[in-house]
């Protein structure tokens, strides 16, 4: 049996499907509510719901503690997590508590002894083929990896509550407690926006982003930037797309004056459509984009905005 550790992101369902394709029985684990109808449709017969009063305000260490107790209890052959920050962090705590190896960011997995896997390094710069010698095998599946649902729908999905014992012994590592929590509100973020108008060195200054903001507004999107823009103080780091910023996957990624170093590319490569505007026809991002416009963004963007205005009026 393999445990699939879910959160409430769509990627979790991709992960579930991929895990089911590994050819073993899969049971789900959640830390919150579970949509049992949906899970049943996806062929999951049981979901283990970890619940404890402490978990809400405790550091991820507590989640890890709880998850490792569940693992001890169920003795699965493998535990597969979705590659979100929260689940990965909990899985890392499980690994640290149990002394087991953990393979993160996997894109290909085959069970066995050892498990063979391919994982993503450097946000997508390289792939690593590795063996995982351990039982249970702990791993997380990279976002965007999915599979055909291995199991047909089942009649129902049973919820099995699991209450961990968060003992004094574990208290040290659980001393981190949440004292403040702010919701992002309803505003769009890089992670959720359907369109990102992103600017790099070619924008030239903080002022230069005005045209990008106007275009983003017209397209119902947000502004992003490359690391150059952050380092020059043109944009806050929260706007940064890339390996060490936010990884994005919008419908349209409009890259303005971004040459496209690998560190940036791996942050935007999952976008459905990439359009690059650059003076250099040979810039890496221009070559990798779906569409390209060769020219200075200070000429191209105003013209595009004018064209949008003209069409909306017409």
């Amino acid at each position, binding site marked *: 049996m393999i445990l699939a550790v879910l959160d409430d992101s769509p990627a979790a369902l991709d992960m579930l499907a991929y895990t089911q394709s590994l050819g073993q029985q899969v049971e789900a684990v959640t830390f919150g509510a579970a949509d049992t109808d949906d899970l049943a449709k996806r062929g999951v017969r049981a979901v283990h719901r970890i619940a404890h009063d402490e978990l809400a305000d405790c550091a991820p260490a507590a989640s890890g503690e709880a998850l490792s107790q569940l693992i001890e209890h169920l003795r699965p052959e493998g535990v597969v997590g979705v590659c979100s920050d929260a689940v990965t962090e909990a899985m890392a705590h499980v690994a640290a508590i149990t002394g087991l190896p953990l393979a993160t960011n996997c894109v290909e997995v085959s069970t066995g002894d050892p498990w063979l896997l391919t994982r993503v390094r450097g946000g997508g710069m390289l792939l690593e083929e590795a063996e995982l010698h351990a039982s249970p095998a702990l791993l997380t599946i990279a976002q965007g990896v999915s599979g055909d649902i291995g199991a047909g729908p089942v009649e129902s999905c049973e919820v099995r509550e699991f209450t961990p014992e968060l003992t004094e012994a574990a208290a040290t590592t659980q001393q981190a407690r949440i004292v403040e929590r702010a919701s992002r509100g309803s505003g769009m973020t890089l992670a959720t926006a359907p369109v990102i108008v992103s600017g790099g060195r070619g924008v030239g200054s903080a002022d230069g982003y005005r045209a990008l903001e106007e275009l983003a507004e017209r397209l119902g999107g947000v502004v992003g930037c490359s690391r150059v823009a952050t380092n020059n103080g043109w944009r806050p780091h929260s706007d940064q797309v890339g390996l060490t910023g936010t990884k994005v996957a919008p419908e349209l990624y409009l890259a303005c004056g971004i040459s496209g170093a690998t560190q940036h590319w791996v942050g935007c490569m999952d976008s459905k459509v990439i359009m690059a505007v650059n003076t*250099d026809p*040979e810039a890496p991002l221009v070559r990798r984009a779906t569409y390209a416009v060769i020219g200075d963004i200070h000429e191209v963007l105003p013209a595009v905005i004018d064209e949008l205005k003209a069409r909306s009026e017409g």
Partner: protein
Amino acid sequence: MSTDSSRVPSSADVVIIGAGIVGNSVAYHLAELGWRNIVLLDKGPLPDPGGSTGHASNFIFPVDHSKEITALTLESMRQYEKLGTITTCGGIEVARTEERIEELKRRLASSKAWGIPSELITPERVAQLVPFVDPSVILGGFWTPSAAVVDPLQTGALMREQASAHGALTVSANTEVTGISTERGRVTAIHTDKGDIATDRIVVACGVWSPRIARMAGARIPLTPAVHQMMDVGPIPELADTGTEIAYPIVRDMDALMYERQSGADLEIGSYAHRPILHEPDEIPSIEAAALSPTQLPFTQDDFDPQLEDALELFGSILNEPGAGVRHAINGLLSMTPDGAPILGESPEVGGLWSAAAVWIKEGPGVGRMMAEWMTTGTPEIDLHGADIARFYPHQRTTHHVVARANEGFNKIYGIVHPREQWASNRRQRLSPFHAREVEAGAVFFEVGGWERPHWYESNRPLVTEFGVPDRPHEWDGRWWSPITNAEHLAMRERAAMIDLTAFAQFDVSGPGALDYLQRMVMAQVDKAVGRLIYTPVLAPNGGFRSDLTIVRLGDEHFRVITGGADGARDAFWFRSHLPDDGSVAFADITSAVCTLGLWGPRARDILAATTPDDVSNEAFGFGTAKRIVIDGVPVLALRVSYVGDLGWELHAPFEHGQHLWDAIAAAGEPHGIVPAGIGVYGTTGRLEKGYRLMGAELDSEYNAVEAGLALPKVKSADFIGKEAYLAARESGPAATLCTLALGNTADHTSASGIARFPQGGEPILARDGERIVDRKGRSSYVTTAGAAPSLGTYLLMAYLPPEYAVEGERLVVEYMAEQYPVTVARVGRTPLFDPDDTRMKS
């Protein structure tokens, strides 16, 4: 023009590889000169394909001791000016040591010789010009107001644009050369990843990659990529406040082997002080694999560390600024050659393959124009013999040699290099058969073309006392020099000397077409009686000098060409590349088969007669003739000729007989007091007293035979290269005439600090009021050769002077180390000062 077409044209009149500053300039100037169907390729993207042009510090200090390099730089500055891509900010070379102050004085002389306004300034003045320099750590500066920064990428873009406007140029970026085809030693096509181009001319202008491209055609371009470390430190408020790219003069901290220049809000620091870090052209990372660009390699901090303190010492006030950090640091690649000079011209190894490599940003545009002229007319306006790719002998093209000399030369980039300074690495490559004897005699060897040549012999030191030769009191004047040379000279004039001349390059030219061929190659009449010697200029197509050499007519259809070791490789290429296609002339380079011993002095005939049964009397063996004689059993080709002005012979023998020949002459000469003499006598003192010209010093392609005083009374009827220009020069007369000038008495050339000084060559000759002398062609008067004339008891300088100054007895001045000394025009033209009627050597 198209930059993103997926295929290259199928044929071209010329293909230029490399779209850096050099390639762009070559393309532009070829188009200006009427070329069409020019293709410019680069494997990188435009406008910055990733070569050295893209990361250079882009500043220009126009003054160089080399006339050739300075001329290329000035021409480049004119082009940058015309395109509006130059920003004049001035530059200061600062001195931390007394020795450097002397070097700056020497630079001042060079600046005056080449006509670039400059001055020596105090530390306080330096601090006025660049307020963040600490004046207490320097002793002075050399201020060049015209020093500037340029934008070579923009320059290249404009040049491409203009060439394209002529409809002359196709540019293909992101196009990698995969091969070059040749047939019968000439290029026929170039292969790229975007198709093949049939062409018979290729210009390799790919900087550090040039060796790799040349090798595809089977040729060598002897350079190596070498690291030059650079970093940007900032932001610095004082610099940011200027609001411009550069508002302060560039500072070259010469003794620290570094430079510092403003670059916007940053101070850019470059170093030539670190260990030489050489790379293989094949191992430069690809554009995809390079983090920054292929020629901007990862910075190696350890190598730069020692320079941090020097930089902080001079620029502490801004480099200690809180918040100023090292924002960018690279190991930039540049090209190092064995002698530090560029590599230009058609490869002697593969016809139609032209090199335009190892060029700095300051020379790039000028090199482009010169290459275009060279390819179009056969002669560039600026004499480029020092940069000619044909200058290298085979061993000098090897990686072994390139690496050895690049390692040794790297720290000389900002070093103080004496004009006679010798290389230490990769020596003892070419040894004459006399070498063992020379070592026994305490020879001090100087190198030419890889040959070890005795410059003087320590065993002759007693002669210094015997002849009472004074030493030179100033260390610089006496560096790489010995009074023994003058003593050897006097011993030769009084008794006899034997001189190793094995470094001569020698060619045998034979066959039914040999006479016509040589007639076409040289200026003098070659159709002389068998056994005659012919001294002749070899002219470039523009009538300037390509070479000067001696031809011996050995038979009706058999000639020997004998030329200097320094230019032997260039001459071999020149002669080979003009051979007729019909096979009527055989050409053999026999340099390695022949050794040559010079025997001169009043006792020379007595000595020679004692070694040979042959009649060597003046009646039987007149001046200007050749004879085969036998010396103690050694078959020898003896030439009755002299470059030192005394009776004697050049004795040419099979190489393996050399030591026997030496011993025979030495033994026979002993009773006559023969001495071995070095090239110091042959090349300088003896030659100067006789007013003989030296290729590369007095003779270059910017001066014609009339000006050099080498015009012949009659012009032969046969056609020859440069004839038309030669006839025109005879018609128009000289714009300047080569003269010999003499320093006055000791008091006349004693410096303010009381030391007698001796100019070493390259100094400006000025009018008595200190004004520069410039002829009507714009050429200034400077010292082409300087040296002692021991038999005349004076010190001579050679220089070209315009007619109004070329008057015997005219009093002028020479500027040396920031002081001016009176000189007198002792001779106008070629008549020797010593033994003007040549009675000694013709007796």
